[in-house]
């Protein structure tokens, strides 16, 4: 089995790995780069637990091959908090208890950040449609939507 050498940028840092052609980017992140924040839910692109940014576009990392990451930029849940602390989305998910088992949470936060980066003031319907590809089997979504709305408000500099 021939392994391919791939050079990529993950969360702003240059990373290299070897992978087999059929390995997904999700497998590579978790098993080769030990970035286990990104979760595997369905492995068929239905649940969004493995959401990452690939060249600034939201994708399911289970539906990307590791070899396709060559010369690309990948941003994962591990890159969202800074040295100063948690991202407002992470804080609001905690505050609103917008998680229970937590498997879907990294995907929701990556996806919600992608939304707020392009639309700082989405309405509830826009949030629900944008996050339709992220499944949560615990919370029932309401707390997640409220956490995203509250984080958006905080990020816009408005008092909640």
């Amino acid at each position, binding site marked *: 089995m021939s392994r391919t050498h791939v050079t990529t940028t993950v969360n702003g840092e240059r990373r290299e790995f070897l992978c087999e*052609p059929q390995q997904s980017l999700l497998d590579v992140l978790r098993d080769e780069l030990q970035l286990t924040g990104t979760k595997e839910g369905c492995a*068929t692109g239905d649940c969004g637990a493995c*959401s990452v940014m*690939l060249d600034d576009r*939201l*994708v399911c990392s289970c*539906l990307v091959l590791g070899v396709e990451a060559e010369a690309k930029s990948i941003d994962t849940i591990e890159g969202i908090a800074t040295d100063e602390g948690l991202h407002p989305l992470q804080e609001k998910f905690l505050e609103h208890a917008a998680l229970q088992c937590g498997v879907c949470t990294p995907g929701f936060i990556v*996806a919600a950040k992608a939304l707020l980066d392009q639309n700082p003031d989405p309405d509830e319907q826009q949030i629900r449609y944008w996050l339709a590809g992220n499944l949560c089997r615990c919370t029932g979504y309401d707390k997640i939507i409220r956490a995203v709305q509250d984080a958006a408000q905080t990020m816009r500099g408005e008092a909640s």
Partner: protein
Amino acid sequence: MQSFAYAAPETVEQVIAVLQEHSQAGKPAQILAGGTDLLVQIRSVDGSARTIVDVKKLPETNRLEIGASEIYVGAAIPGAVLTANTDLKARLPGLVEAIDLIGSTQIQGRASLGGNLCNASPAGDTIPALIANAGRCQIAGPAGTRELPVEEFVTGVGTNALGEGELLLGICFTPPAARTSDAYLRFIPRTEMDIAVAGAGVSVTLDEKGICTAARVSICAVAPTVLLVPAAADALIGTSLDDEALAAAGAACTAASSPISDKRGTAEYRRKVVAVLCKRAAGIAAERARGSH
């Protein structure tokens, strides 16, 4: 034993060479664009090893041109790029709404128009919209480039007209004439993230008095392949798209259907709902055509 391999050629000639080489050696090779169907199929349907030929590095599959004499959409462009393009949306709103219906935000980030067509699902949402707009497949192969109307591209459930060493580069359209527009509607039991129970794409051209002078109607999920329904178009042409004409077009869609019954709907239900979708899509396309100049 055959093992998985990955190739990402940068020219069309190289893709053709890789595909031919594999075909002659009896080794399986498969084209990858967005991967949202292919990787799922590898994982859950047929996991056998093959060479995956990524066509995303070709200029031809990434080119998006909305010109005065031709519209060209590269086969590998992801949905998110197409739905964000306001020019394309202004020219072919029905096609863009069909693209936008596919999958989640994450899927839109990868899934391509060419992939949706090549995957050749009877319920492929973009296919009726492509056919309604008289899209023409640009196919490259060992013998050169050929063109094929979209309605002739899909040959069966999951099969297409691509021959040995061939790949789909993109889809061409003649830009809509004055007072011409399109619409696509599908029915799903949920509000998002589902597969069409039935769908209809319609394009109409009106004259200055509002009489329909040209139309194309295409329906999906009601037959093994997406259908062009000339009888439905004929029912619209020469009319003011009044209720009677719309009903006749809907009835022609029902007559053209040969659906199956499955968990999404019975054959009887699909035959009925496809008529409603045709009528409504024709109404929306007409409204858009009246507003365009």
